[in-house]
């Protein structure tokens, strides 16, 4: 039982617990802030997998960008009159059948994943993942990189256009 194992179990339980809060909570703002801790747990998983640049990017883009968008969305699409922001309850039959279906899917996935013989290779000690990611983006994945930039530009312009107030 060394520190890495302990850290992995702690962060895995943290991530899954807060993900459960996101999915099962009635209060939408509790769900949004539990999502903050879920993203943080996923970033710590990346750190344990020796992907340091990816972990910091995850925190910056997901927490500093997407989560702020989601919270602004929650604030702007509810009536701020002091009423608690709750979500309506789904029908009982739908919930039970959805639960059974997802449990079956989880069992299938975990069964397949743990019984397959994966061809794992030796893990060389890599220190500079930022450099490797940068080199990869500009040599092998250049087309994908440029296309992703164009897509981000189109998404920004499109979102700003859709959400504008029409001049009446």
């Amino acid at each position, binding site marked *: 039982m060394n520190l890495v194992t302990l850290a992995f179990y702690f962060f895995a339980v943290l991530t899954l617990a807060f993900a459960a809060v996101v999915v099962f909570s009635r209060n939408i703002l509790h769900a949004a802030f539990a999502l903050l801790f879920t993203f943080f747990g996923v970033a710590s998983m990346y750190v344990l997998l020796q992907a340091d640049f990816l972990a910091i990017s995850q925190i910056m*883009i997901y927490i500093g960008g997407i989560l702020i968008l989601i919270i602004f969305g929650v604030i702007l699409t509810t009536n701020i009159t002091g009423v608690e922001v709750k979500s309506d309850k789904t029908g009982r039959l739908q919930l039970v059948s959805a639960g059974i279906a997802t449990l079956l899917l989880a069992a299938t996935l975990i069964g397949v994943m743990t019984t397959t013989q994966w061809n*794992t290779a030796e893990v060389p000690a890599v220190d500079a993942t930022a450099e*490797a990611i940068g080199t990869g983006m500009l040599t092998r994945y250049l087309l994908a990189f440029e296309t992703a930039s164009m*897509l981000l530009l189109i998404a920004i312009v499109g979102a700003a256009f859709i959400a504008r107030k029409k001049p009446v």
Partner: protein
Amino acid sequence: MEIGLNHYLVVSALLFTLGLFGVISRKHAIMVLMGLELILNAANINFVAFAKYGGMNMDGQLAAVFVIILAAAEAAVALAILLKIFHHFRHVNIDEVNQMKE
């Protein structure tokens, strides 16, 4: 017990199914979006785990970077559409947004 590939795969599978349950069973559109983000994060953990245990192949981490970029773009557009739906219907309950023309 040594932490191996299977541990990360199990975590990502559980996160994926939690996100899927969130997408299926919720009625508030932003809850659905949050479940979708959980699904994308689970796939990312999978990518990066295979990148590490496959000889530190950077392809997995690059795929995860592109997934993060696309998730950001998609969240922005989804929230813009949600704002329009709210302006029109005065609620974001996706079960009741089923009319093409009011």
